[in-house]
């Protein structure tokens, strides 16, 4: 790879900080948003932030296992999408709403 495409001064730290920011956006978004679909996307953002961290560390440590872990995470995320969307759709059919505030039968 040429020095132009991958300058030396961009270190793993940049990617790690970006991942930390993405993770924080996801976590805060999950806590403040009310639309269950948006909350769901926030979880995906958090998982991908973790993936980015794995890849950056794998590159910095020169260790392949961190990159392999990302494949596992992708599979897990796909399985979560399948089940999560099914539950959200089942609730939408009954309530015609995906708003988390409408789901309030259980409290106390």
């Amino acid at each position, binding site marked *: 790879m040429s020095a132009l495409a991958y300058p030396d001064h961009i270190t793993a730290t940049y990617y*790690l900080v970006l*991942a930390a920011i993405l*993770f924080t956006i*996801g*976590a805060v978004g*999950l806590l403040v948003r009310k639309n*269950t679909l948006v*909350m*769901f996307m926030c*979880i995906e953002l*958090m*998982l991908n*932030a*973790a993936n980015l*961290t*794995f890849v*950056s*560390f794998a590159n*910095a*440590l020169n*260790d392949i*296992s*961190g990159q392999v*872990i990302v494949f*596992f*995470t992708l599979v*897990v995320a796909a*399985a*979560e999408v399948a*089940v*999560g969307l*099914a*539950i*959200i759709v*089942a*609730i939408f059919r*009954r*309530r015609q709403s995906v708003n*988390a505030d409408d*789901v*309030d*039968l*259980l*409290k*106390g």
Partner: protein
Amino acid sequence: MIGAGVTPIAHAPVDWYAIAPEIALFAAAILIVVLRSVARHDPKVHQASMLIAIAGVAASALFTGVQWAFVHSNGPYQAMSGLVAVDGFGVFVKSVILGATLLALLLSGGYLRREHLESPEYFALMLCSATGMMLMASANDLITIFLSLEILSIALYVLAAFDRRRLSSQEAGLKYFLLGSFSSAVFLYGIALVYGATGTTRLSGIAQFLAKIVLLHDGVLFVGLALLLVGLGFKVAAAPFHMWTPDVYQGAPTPVTAFMAAATKAAAFAAVLRIFVGAFRLYDVDWRPAVFGLAVLSLLVGSIAAVVQTDVKRMLAYQSISHAGYVLIGVQAATDKGTSAALFYVCTYAVMATGAFAIVMLVARRGDDRHELTDYRGLASARPVLAGLLTLFLLAQAGVPLTGGFVAKLSVFSAAIDVGQYWLALVGMLAAVIGAFVYLRIVLAMYAPPDDEAAPEGPRIVVDAGTGVALTIAAGAIVFLGVVPGIVLDFAHAATQLLAR
């Protein structure tokens, strides 16, 4: 075409015996799904799938026994290039999980028939979830723990939402899903940071790394460790990460609640013990105060919040938070004694929680919605045996002598006092007193005369054969654990000694 300088990919050796118990459970789950798709409309499939599930648990128990015999004579070892540990610790937790799964399966048969929810998928999902838990008990790598956490959770999300017609069940499924996957993401990010700091995700590798190298900049490691604790704190339902517990336990179908309370806690605590007491033992100065805080909060929040509830299922859910606090007392000691006390507590809690939720399931009757304290009025005169059994399970949870609960509480307290944590033991005893008040409220309601105005309408309480067997096993086990605890205590002690490090 492979060039001369390219080495062929080396295949890691697969030690099938190391994961035979998990394979047996998962094979039974696959068999059920296949049977369901070939004999789609045969009503016998439901009964057959329950039998297959029980056979799977039995086969898994057999393999676990073989593993114990092997570990006992040859010592613990690591398999699958260190991803999985075969050791006494894992065997103990697996036995608890298998017992809890068996009880939950026995409860489910009658429940599904009563609620007209008969479908083989339920058993397949429960076995999948149990597979994840078993894998978690023997995991020796943070990624194995993460994957098994997801295997057990994703199946449980569906099980919590299984009663499609009841809105509260769907709501429980959604809440469990959102907070469960949130905690999984937090846990995964924690793994990523620990990987960055130590260069490995193997638990034994981390322990070796930390023993050899003193990190000058250990901020990343500490943040990772904290995130791991948060992620697992959600799964064991420790305060302040307990918000989902009352809602999900209340809304989920009651046999699923029993399964979640008993088996999930056992599996998640196995991971907590392996990560913190095992891999990060050298850093116990740093994580013990955090676990101390979690334990105190769980004990107090769980027992105080239960006092103001009027819904019995919810009360038991809050009490499960405080029981997590007792186990954390054992974890916090960070000694072998503390670990074996925590194991014994997890085992006892599995029995008494399943027993109590079984009676709650029966009293709720069709619709699974009679959980109020008033629904329990007059139970003792109408169904004296059921009332007596619930009294036994509640007294055990309160920690009354001659029940397993007493021995369990005593052993975690003595582990805490051994390392000089008098305050923690004191908070635990305070929580036990508040908890006893909660249990007494339920017991008094049962032995109160029935309300004349609100006469017990609705269908009769029907005890089916499976539930009867499950209740007998649970009651026998709780008395056994209280009267002759030595056998299981010795097992827990031996299991702790045979921990793969």
